[in-house]
């Protein structure tokens, strides 16, 4: 589900891959804010767009909101993807990991970079917003059951063969197993690979140290030192 959020004031500069911490509607079932990645940004109309999949009580309560509801957000949080020196990127996502890829794709396109998306899902119903992504770049898809695109995992797609040849950098967001699988492939190629992690968070601003991931230089906060990490820094 898309949440289109109208800001009462001008939006700050937002990097692709950054996220919001949203206060979910009052409920006995949720307590903490929920980190949700920014799907798209409309600076002209001061709108943030979030893509929310119902997975737990927090996202469920967000998906039950009626039009016109008010949300309390802390944003923009995290480092985001660095798009400054990217020339030939492949944007790989699985499942709800497609969320940040729209704004990332648009940001790259704005830099006159050709954008290629490679998305994987269990079946065709898991592939969302295909037309919108095609407006931004080329879209390749895989499904595990073959109901759309190439059958199999993203790591089995022909575009993966072009890593280090046609692509110099990879941006990945999705289930941890999929990101690790992509990581294993890129390790053998001469490409930079950024992954966006999704750990459980409390504060979102680097204060509580709950969301850490293990890196070559010790525990790092996914909320402030991530969510985007160069795969070389992770202990994968």
């Amino acid at each position, binding site marked *: 589900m898309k949440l289109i959020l109208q800001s009462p004031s001008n939006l700050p500069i937002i990097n692709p891959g950054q996220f919001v911490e949203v*206060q979910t509607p009052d409920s*006995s079932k949720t307590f903490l804010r929920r980190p949700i990645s920014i799907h798209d940004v409309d600076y002209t109309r001061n709108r943030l767009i979030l893509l929310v999949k119902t997975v737990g009580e927090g996202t469920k309560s967000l998906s039950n909101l009626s039009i016109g509801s008010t949300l309390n957000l802390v944003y923009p949080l995290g480092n985001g993807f660095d798009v400054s020196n990217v020339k030939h990127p492949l944007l790989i996502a699985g499942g709800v990991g497609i969320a940040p890829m729209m704004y990332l794709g648009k940001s790259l396109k704005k830099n006159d970079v050709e954008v290629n998306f490679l998305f994987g899902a269990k079946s065709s119903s898991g592939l969302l917003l295909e037309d919108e992504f095609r407006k931004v770049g080329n879209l390749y898809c895989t499904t595990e059951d073959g109901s759309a695109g190439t059958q199999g995992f993203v790591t089995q797609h022909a575009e993966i063969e072009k890593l280090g040849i046609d692509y110099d950098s990879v941006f990945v967001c999705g289930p941890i197993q999929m990101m690790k699988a992509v990581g294993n492939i890129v390790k053998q190629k001469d490409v930079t690979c950024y992954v966006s992690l999704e750990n459980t968070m409390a504060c979102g*601003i680097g*204060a*509580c140290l*709950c*969301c*850490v991931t293990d890196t070559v230089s*010790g525990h790092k906060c996914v909320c402030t030192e991530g969510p985007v990490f160069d795969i070389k820094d992770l202990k994968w």
Partner: protein
Amino acid sequence: MNLNGLILKNPVMTASGTFGYGLEYDDFMDVSSLGGIIVKGTTLNPREGNPYPRLAEVKQGMINAVGLQNKGVDYFCKHIYPLVYNYKTNVLVNVSGSCISDYVSTAERINELENIPGIELNISCPNVKEGGMAFGTSCESAQKVVEAVRQVYKKHLMVKLSPNVTNISEIAIAVESAGADSVSLINTVLAMAINSETRRPVLSTITGGLSGPAIKPIALRMVWQVSKAVKIPIVGLGGIMTAADAIEFMLAGASAVEIGTANFIDPAISAKIVAGIINYLERHNISDVNSIIGGLIV
């Protein structure tokens, strides 16, 4: 307000481990408007803390298992202290250790820092294998570590008590007799979360520390008990989310409060609680905030 020598502009402080070094909250509020901030648990040597996952959300609370991740007291003195030097509020350092000599050495280092008017001695962290809570669950060990630190630490010595005890008043009395200037309570309650679908514990450490509104009624009771047992001031904490919560702790006997988990829900909450307390005092025609301390009508 005078907390046994520590002068607070208002009774609202922030709890260690929930407010980073204050710097993380500069975007959301004027940190110097608070009565004090208690910065992250600091140990003699750097600590990596526990593996991920360190967090379980539960009903009206959270369980954490951070395990005192910090870069050690030397790093604090060299790199963090200059950044917090100019806060116009009391910056207290929460000090942890796995043996008495660690506590003492860390306290000695912090004693040298001109703009740190006090430490909060953490004898109640449930998330470390050695030391931590073990010191805070018996009168003898609590007394020993406080006496040792008192020898070297010349400024305000606050001791943070564990709720995971049969009789918190006994521990408070032991700590008072060992020379503590104040006690803060409660630290987190040892707790556990399980995912019934995966049949696994949610935390890497299986158990962790419960905080948030879920523990407020327990914290309030312990503040009330301790206020009957000791003469040194009490700093109350545990699930405070609103100014009314803070007032309740003060009525129960706390001279000041610490805001913890609420900082994660609303990063500007501690400043809002300061404003809410002022509003409460005005509504009730109370001119001196000190007059509500222990003011419960029974």
